[in-house]
């Protein structure tokens, strides 16, 4: 149990690093670290297949997409970074305080509460669930995939024309 608490604390620290970092590249890398910690938590929660997807796609592919996008944008000068850092600190200084207060309040509220979810024991095979029980989701996913591909093609074709 202490391992889970430790991982969750590191998760919040990684998220705060995403938020507070002045360099976009550091934020993107911190997001990858966040994904890795979420992966470890998923393994602990008996979801290895989803964890592998999270690790390969969220920590890998999405980080690459973010870094590619950042490489298109003009980098900020060193003097500007210091000013931006001070401005960001002023803007986000309330966030850790809010998180600590809300976290403590929720923890105290949850303590006396009886948390009970009904046990739903169904199919245990992920592949069977995905392909046989959630077929509609697969169709929706395929449509979104096509829309995404067309969207990217249209976006970059317009860019080339101009």
């Amino acid at each position, binding site marked *: 149990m202490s391992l889970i608490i430790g991982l969750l604390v590191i*998760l919040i620290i990684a998220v705060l690093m995403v938020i507070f970092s002045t360099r976009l590249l550091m934020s993107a890398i911190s997001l990858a670290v966040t994904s890795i910690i979420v992966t470890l938590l998923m393994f602990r929660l008996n979801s290895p297949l*989803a964890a592998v997807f*999270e690790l390969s796609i969220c920590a890998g*592919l999405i980080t690459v997409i973010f870094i590619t996008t950042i490489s298109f944008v003009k980098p900020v000068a060193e003097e500007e970074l210091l000013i931006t850092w001070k401005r960001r600190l002023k*803007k986000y200084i309330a966030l850790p305080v809010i998180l600590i207060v809300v976290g403590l309040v929720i923890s105290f509220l949850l*303590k006396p509460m009886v948390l009970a979810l009904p046990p739903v024991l169904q*199919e245990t095979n992920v592949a069977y669930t995905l392909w046989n029980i959630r077929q509609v989701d697969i169709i929706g996913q395929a449509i*979104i995939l096509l829309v995404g591909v067309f969207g990217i093609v249209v976006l970059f074709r317009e860019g080339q024309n101009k």
Partner: protein
Amino acid sequence: MSAENAEILRIFIPFIILLLIAGFYFILATRNLIRILLGVEIITKAALLAIILAGYVTNNTALAQSLAIIMIIIEVFVVAVAAGIIIQIYKKTGSVDARNIRNLRG
């Protein structure tokens, strides 16, 4: 639900809510479009963790995992299309500031 599952639920819920708050705060406070996308990613992580947690405590990890996999794949496309839009905005306006696209038509 076993005592261990109740304990896990009690540990995870505050942290998931904190992740959500951090993500929403980040989106509301920043004007950089890339950072807004990072905020959306943080919120997605919280939702993903909540789905997996629900699957674990109800002893239905297969369904939770299949939903999580679908969510991750859709997330990639959302990020890819949003990144494409951000690059186009940068090419047009020369910055990734959300204030620059306030006076769009429509």
